[in-house]
């Protein structure tokens, strides 16, 4: 696996304005989902988080109610500048995209049937899918350090794919059932 290395020293955001700017840039690149872009911007470009930290924060934001990228922005903002930082990161994530989205909602009716527009949207959707798959691949590298061990971790990952993507079980049920089992096993493996 020759993904970009994860050894460069970590950096920190300089100010709330910096947080706002980075999260705005990140959100505006996210077509069909911000998460793959978040990994690129926060781990590879800004180096605010290591790959392992990113995966841990994502795991937590995943089980909390609410959009996981919104939860992720709150966590990162709060970590550096408290409540002000959380608000700045959240505003960065939502403000400009919201304005853009509402402008598009007004325009949408006029261009929805244009074949070039429809084609461009399909192409962008395909790229989003590829980004998400690559991100999953990169994140799997972190599982080697997991107390569950790589083989068992991969089994849990595969079971999640089957339940969520193939059988379409509700996520809450999968996290409550399979997640509890994984947490219990990790708890046992971490015994002092």
């Amino acid at each position, binding site marked *: 696996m020759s993904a970009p290395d994860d050894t460069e020293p970590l950096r920190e955001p300089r100010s709330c304005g910096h947080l706002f700017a980075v999260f705005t840039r990140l959100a505006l690149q996210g077509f069909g989902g911000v998460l793959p872009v978040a990994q690129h911007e926060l781990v590879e470009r800004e180096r605010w988080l290591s790959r392992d930290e990113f995966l841990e924060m994502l795991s937590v934001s995943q089980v909390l109610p609410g959009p996981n990228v919104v939860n992720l922005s709150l966590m990162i903002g709060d970590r550096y500048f408290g409540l002000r930082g959380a608000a700045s990161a959240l505003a960065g994530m939502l403000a400009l995209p919201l304005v853009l989205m509402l402008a598009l*909602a007004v325009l949408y009716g006029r261009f929805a049937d244009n074949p070039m527009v429809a084609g*461009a949207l*399909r192409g*962008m*959707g*395909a790229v989003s899918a590829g980004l*998400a798959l690559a991100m999953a691949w990169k994140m799997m590298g972190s599982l080697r350090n997991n107390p569950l061990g790589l083989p068992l971790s991969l089994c849990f990952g595969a079971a999640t794919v089957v339940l969520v993507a193939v059988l379409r079980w509700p996520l809450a049920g999968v996290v409550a059932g399979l997640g509890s089992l994984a*947490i219990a096993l990790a708890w046992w493996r971490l015994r002092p």
Partner: protein
Amino acid sequence: MTATLHAADLLALFGHFLLLSLLAVGGAITTTPDMHRYLVAEQHWLTNAQFTASIALAQAAPGPNVLFVAVLGYNAAGLPGALATMAGILLPSTTLALWATRWGRSNKETRGVRAFTLGLAPLTCGLLLSTGWVLTEPSRDSPGAMLLVGWTAVVTARTRWSPIWLVALGAIVGAMGYA
């Protein structure tokens, strides 16, 4: 259809999304069936077609997926509607997330918190893979689009190219009719 709702209706709209916020584990998109039931079947504030178009539009625009909630609110009741649905869906979950993250950070090294985050990590990877898989759905009957999916995945895994260039390229390839 963009009816002007009364203050009482706006309050009801806000209240309903407030409730949905805490149920939205795994993202707001998981609560779409209930939004559909409420906005289309029960209140008749949106038509079926408006509902579907709102979600497709949000997928196409940049930004977090949760913004589809604002488009639903906008189509139901204009700008006040967008404000009501967005504030409703965000307030409870952000408050809870902030509280939980602070508690988790001050107990970061305890065995319980470590078991929680590390135990869930494999599931998170699985969920990311599932997201990628579900996103390929509209592309599966087009060889060109599937090629684009595969090419993007390989380039992203092996380089540090910014996703924005890949998305732009996808738009061009798609507009030319190859996706």
